[in-house]
């Protein structure tokens, strides 16, 4: 059976992000006064959140008293690192105990959670004028980003349709971040293509005040985020998607083999020997501590960390550029969308909805963005003068970050088939890349073995 035959690919951002700005500004016109929202409808109740450590969480915590004052709802939360956080969430959701009313998640995770019936669809709450303010303005969300939270529950198709399972809180795409002073010292230009980058890989190293400075850093462990996000961006720029238009797996296609070989060459030449175990936080901290010339295809929302002198030793020496172009001069990029969902076993759903509504409202979105919650998912936040001023200041030259982020957003999409076990398939894919890096078999054999295993997972 063809896997994804004929299903239109949800092109989440293309012509979405900045084209939508125009459309949204008309939508901003005052709407006729609807019924007043009773913010105190769940006064006296308590909700519990599961938060995954992220700049969003840091930006949210100081605002929580504001919510309690407005609604009379007490908010408690648990904040955990990604790995243990998702594991704990899975244990709670699957046992349907409802310990967490609202939790951080993403479309990838929700494809499993929604299949399990653990998510509360949000459409009815949004439609309820007693619960949702008239100025909440769903049309203000970047359409593609909001649509990533919809799914029909059919495996391998139907993203962007069906019920709304989540509201987005930020999205990341990928970029090159580099040290202008070091690039100048080395006499190198910021690479425009992967070929450029490969050609300079040998030269990307120098000495700094605290010892040798390595070439590039990027996350590289054996988990799904590798083919899904960072290396995924490189794969997609080489024209590789997990399934092609006919629904056939492309894990060991010639383009995929080429991209993987180039990636491994790059890491071997320009990364330190322990590059085969880097996680995203190590990649972020490593670059922020000034030990690398370049951060390769890493999340662009690390920029607020790089720019913050308290967290970074390179805040006055960092530049941003879009990810390189593929062999055919094309660029495509992955996207990660942090979202909030409501537990279908939540004990107080009204309170949970009021929180979801409040935290994703225009007003609070601006406040969290100013406190480092990047990138905004509402066009009104992108247009907010204070947010614009903040983001304009990032980079080697004014506006450099925004320009790179916009370039990337135009080609960013979720180019993966929705499936409750997609993470397992991608973990297997990542394992094949690692095997090749550690010299256990050649790229082609490893990728083709992974493809066979993934095929078996799709159609057992």
């Amino acid at each position: 059976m063809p896997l994804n035959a004929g299903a239109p690919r949800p092109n989440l951002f293309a012509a979405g992000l900045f084209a939508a700005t125009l459309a949204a500004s008309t939508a901003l016109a005052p709407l006729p006064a609807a019924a007043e929202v009773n913010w105190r409808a769940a006064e006296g109740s308590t909700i519990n959140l599961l938060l995954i450590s992220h700049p969003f969480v840091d930006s949210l915590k100081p605002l929580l008293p504001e919510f309690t004052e407005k609604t009379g709802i007490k908010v408690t939360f648990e904040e955990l690192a990604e790995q243990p956080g998702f594991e704990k969430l899975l244990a709670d959701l699957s046992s349907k105990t409802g310990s967490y009313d609202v939790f951080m998640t993403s479309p990838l995770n929700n494809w499993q959670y929604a299949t399990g019936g653990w998510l509360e669809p949000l459409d009815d709450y949004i439609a309820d004028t007693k619960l949702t303010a008239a100025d909440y303005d769903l049309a203000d969300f970047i359409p593609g980003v909001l649509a990533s939270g919809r799914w029909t529950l059919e495996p391998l198709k139907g993203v962007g349709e069906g019920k709304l399972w989540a509201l987005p809180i930020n999205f990341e795409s990928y970029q090159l971040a580099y040290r202008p002073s070091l690039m100048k010292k080395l006499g190198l230009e910021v690479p425009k293509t992967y070929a450029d980058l490969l050609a300079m890989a040998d030269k990307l190293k120098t000495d700094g005040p605290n010892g040798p400075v390595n070439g590039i850093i990027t996350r590289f462990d054996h988990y799904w985020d590798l083919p899904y996000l960072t290396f995924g961006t490189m794969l997609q720029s080489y024209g590789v998607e997990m399934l092609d238009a006919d629904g056939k797996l492309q894990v060991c296609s010639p383009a995929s083999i080429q991209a993987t070989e180039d990636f491994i060459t790059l890491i071997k030449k320009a990364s330190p020997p322990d590059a085969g175990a880097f996680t995203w936080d190590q990649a972020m901290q490593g670059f922020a501590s000034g030990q690398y010339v370049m951060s390769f295809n890493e999340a662009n929302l690390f920029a607020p960390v790089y720019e913050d002198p308290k967290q970074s030793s390179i805040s006055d020496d960092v530049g941003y550029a879009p990810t390189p172009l593929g062999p055919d001069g094309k660029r495509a990029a992955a996207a990660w969308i942090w979202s909030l969902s409501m537990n279908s076993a939540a004990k107080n759903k009204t309170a949970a909805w009021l929180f979801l509504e409040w935290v994703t409202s225009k007003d609070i979105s601006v406040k969290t963005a100013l406190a480092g919650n990047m990138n905004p998912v509402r066009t009104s936040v992108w247009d907010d003068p204070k947010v614009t001023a903040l983001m304009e200041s990032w980079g080697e030259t004014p506006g450099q970050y925004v320009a790179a982020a916009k370039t990337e957003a135009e080609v960013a999409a979720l180019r993966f088939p929705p499936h409750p076990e997609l993470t397992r398939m991608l973990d297997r894919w990542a394992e094949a890349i690692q095997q090749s890096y550690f010299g256990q078999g050649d790229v082609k054999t490893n990728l083709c073995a992974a493809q066979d295993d993934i095929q078996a997972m799709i159609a057992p």
Partner: protein
Amino acid sequence: MPPRRQDASENGLARGTFLLLLAPALILLFLSLYPFLSGLYTSLTDQKLYAAGGTRFVGFGNFVRLAGTPLFWTALGNTLTYTALVVAIQLPLGLAFALLLDIPGRLQSFFRSVLVLPLLIPPVVAGLMWKTMMQPQQGVLNYLLSLLGIDPQPWLANPATAMISVVLIDTWLFTPLAAIILLAGLQSISVELTEAARVDGASPWQIVRRIKLPLLGPYVLLVALFRVSDALKSLEIIYATTRGGPLNATRTLHVMAYEEAYRWSNLGRAMAIVFVLWALCYAISGTLLALWQRQEARRYAR
């Protein structure tokens, strides 16, 4: 020992006690047996956390599939390697510490309390601590090696060195346990024996070799039993440092089962792995226990 005759009152008391203890015993039996049996049942199904109601009985399907999964054999090998290394390193090392601590001296009590400090640290914390120290770039371990003129090691970051690195952390954490038990054993040896040997002109080494070590037999077995069963099930240190990586270098059966359940939601397959681990644990500790019992029997037969 001749069998003792029990009089009637004693017998009656026993019966009352028996009835009184029956209820808690049954409760305990139920509490331990029920999860065990339900786990066993799960291992025979294709239960997935997210597939509500869609669970099918698959017989030994999960086990057959495991046998055909190369990763399972890698994980089994890793589990046995980890356990073997842990016992082979920690037993002699613990014994050495115990012998040293058994020597009377002014600093004896100081060293005894310092020795147990690692035991007070939760394994996850120890793992994270060592992970920081073992970082190839900024880690203090490579800095210390560089002072000795030794090349930096990749430690946890390379498949070739990851296993020995996690065993090293386990050793730091649990050798004190071995040392404490063996020290207790040494101190249970009556002074008359060693004094008599000394008076007869035995050297300290001969005392250790001929008197202390043979009498320490049951304690050595006890330590081996503890360390084997703990090492087979070890998860925290590995998960806090390498999460089974790099690649699959430290992926033990327990790590594999954990990921199967909590990364991939596949409860049936996870339980199958757990039962393989259980059988392994049961077989090895059963052998050790049998050895111990034989030793005990021999001791009392004298």
